[in-house]
């Protein structure tokens, strides 16, 4: 489904991704782990189309279609979804209005009729319960004043509403208490489907107890330095990143100096 070949990307002239290769098939869940600053969020943002990052080399296709040629909104309409590591607060736009506009943009793209306010309200309430968010959150500004955990649940709620083909979850497990982790994991597991690929960025093996990945990759210094099955995550938890030969100076963070 998703094919990434020799992807290089930089921000403000500094190269962050230095040749990423990754294949994800429909139905698979891949986890990406790696030290801070290694480029995990950069990869996620590049896939979603953030123009702050410049792709300098390589190719990315989704079901054979060149993703890099598409605008951000077109990617979303083709089924790319990114759950942000830091969801954005937008006071003045209600969550409900935001979600309905997004759902209708996708429906419109598929040639379906738009949902009216009442229909959408019903759907939104169901989905908000699924992630254990009080429907009162729908009335508030997008992520406005939401706690860290509430923001993450709001991201998963959006994924459930938008039903993407490729869901990229950037540290959706960070900052969650035990119950919230369970709720979010249930949400992600509900997303798991034969025709959907999931790319999950995480620092913690504990998430992988709830959502069992098919593959685990280690991203360091802008490259995937190791791939394996879920046991790789356990090994990383026990031994850290040192045994892989990753040193501080190899991370993207310091290599530009």
């Amino acid at each position, binding site marked *: 489904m998703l094919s990434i070949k020799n992807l290089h990307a930089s921000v403000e002239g500094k190269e962050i991704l230095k040749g990423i290769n990754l294949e994800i098939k429909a139905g698979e869940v891949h986890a990406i782990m790696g030290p801070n600053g290694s480029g995990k969020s950069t990869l996620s943002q590049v896939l979603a189309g953030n123009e702050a990052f410049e792709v300098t080399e390589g190719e990315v296709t989704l079901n054979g279609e060149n993703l890099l040629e598409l605008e951000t909104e077109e990617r979303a*309409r083709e089924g790319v979804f990114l759950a942000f590591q830091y969801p*954005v607060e*937008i006071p003045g736009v209600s969550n409900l209005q935001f979600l309905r506009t*997004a759902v209708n943009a996708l429906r419109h793209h598929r040639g379906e009729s738009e949902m009216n306010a009442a229909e959408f309200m019903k759907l939104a309430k169901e989905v908000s319960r699924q992630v254990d968010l009080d429907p009162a959150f729908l009335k508030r500004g997008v992520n406005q004043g939401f706690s860290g955990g509430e923001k993450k649940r709001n991201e998963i709620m959006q994924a459930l509403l938008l039903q993407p083909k490729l869901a990229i979850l950037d540290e959706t497990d960070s900052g969650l208490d035990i119950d919230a982790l369970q709720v979010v994991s249930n949400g992600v597991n509900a997303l798991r489907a034969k025709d959907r690929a999931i790319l999950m960025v995480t620092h913690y093996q504990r998430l992988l107890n709830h959502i069992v990945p098919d593959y685990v990759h280690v991203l360091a210094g802008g490259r995937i330095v190791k791939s394996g099955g879920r046991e790789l995550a356990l090994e990383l938890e026990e031994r850290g990143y040192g045994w892989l030969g990753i040193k501080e100076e190899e991370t993207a963070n310091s290599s530009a100096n």
Partner: protein
Amino acid sequence: MKPAPTLSTAFLHPAGHTLPEPLAALRRQQSSSLVDLPLPTRKTENWKYSSKYLKLTDEMAISLPADGKSGSSLAVPGYKVVVLNGIMMPEASDYPDLDGITIERFEDLDGDTATWLAERLDHALDSQSVQISRLNTARFEDGLLIRLKPGAVLDQPLFIIHETNADASGSAYPRIYVDAGANSQITLVEEYISSGTESAMVNTVTEMNLGEGANVTSIRLNMEGENVQHIGSTGVLQQRSSRFESHCVGFGGPLRRHDLQVRLEGEGADCKLNGVVVTQGKQHYDNHTTIEHVAAHCNSEETYRNIAADQSHAVFNGRIHIHQDAQKSNAEMNNKNLLLSNGAEIDTKPELEIYADDVKCAHGATIGQLDETSLFYLVSRGIGRREANVLLTMAFINELVEQIPVEAVRETAQGRLNHFFEQTFQEA
């Protein structure tokens, strides 16, 4: 050196409409005092960004006729008074006999009331800072006197529809005086619209006196056409423990100027001034506000937001003057601006003069652009870029629009604003 331009004598011809003598006398007197009135130039401090938009031709000196042919048929959720080219149209107006409230035309006032009114007109405005608005007193042909007896409460908003009909070139001088007795309450909506396509100028003055404990909410919608220059002044005097709330929503034009001057004269008076302005194309809008903290223990809270697109120009000048005896004053002023294009211009200036020592006074002004991170978040959900722009721009002013207390007015404003933004981003 070129002599400074002065107001053309064409503007000082006596007005046509007969008025009760005390008002007619005031009009004559003001008219003769305006001979050689200097017009604002770039060097006039409070007009320096706007003088270039003021274009008065002798053709515009003619009083626009109000022959009753037109008159707004706009449905309003409340009582309605229609003022066409500065003259009230009883046939087009619709309000019942109200308990404790009188709404009268200047033309119909008895001698005593006219004398009483003539003594009060022009007292709520600082004539030095609103020079050009003095032209209103020299030219008004009619006016509305709205009086509330102590304790009177108007159960529905009163809409004053000011229509400028510019089938021919000319000018109009609408005038309103509101005397709100102690503990009375009223919500007043002033809506400025226009018809016709010839170049016209509206010079409008509204004055209000809020008695002890009176509560007045004023909503002003400025929606005239591209052929109409608008110069408006609102002066408010507040007695003890009165409360004044103002919501101004303005769309740009060839010249748009609104001076809002509030004097907190009695202890414990309270005012809240909100304003939203949007400009596009080559439009202009200039809001000048002044809050005079004269008495102690008064609060003022002011929030204005401007959005300027294309090559348009918005100006905000907020003056807060805290007098020596106004201890324990609490004044907050905030002005945020959004530039939607590199060609647009926004000028903002807070002016604080504080002569009392025990006061709280906070102010802030920012000029920015749409936030890229927010934009990316929206489009990453499949929302089109244009729609995302509209959502974010609306969000910028929603906080203020949502505070407009009359739902139907709020919806009208929202609808107009939405339309404005859709149009703005279509072209982009």
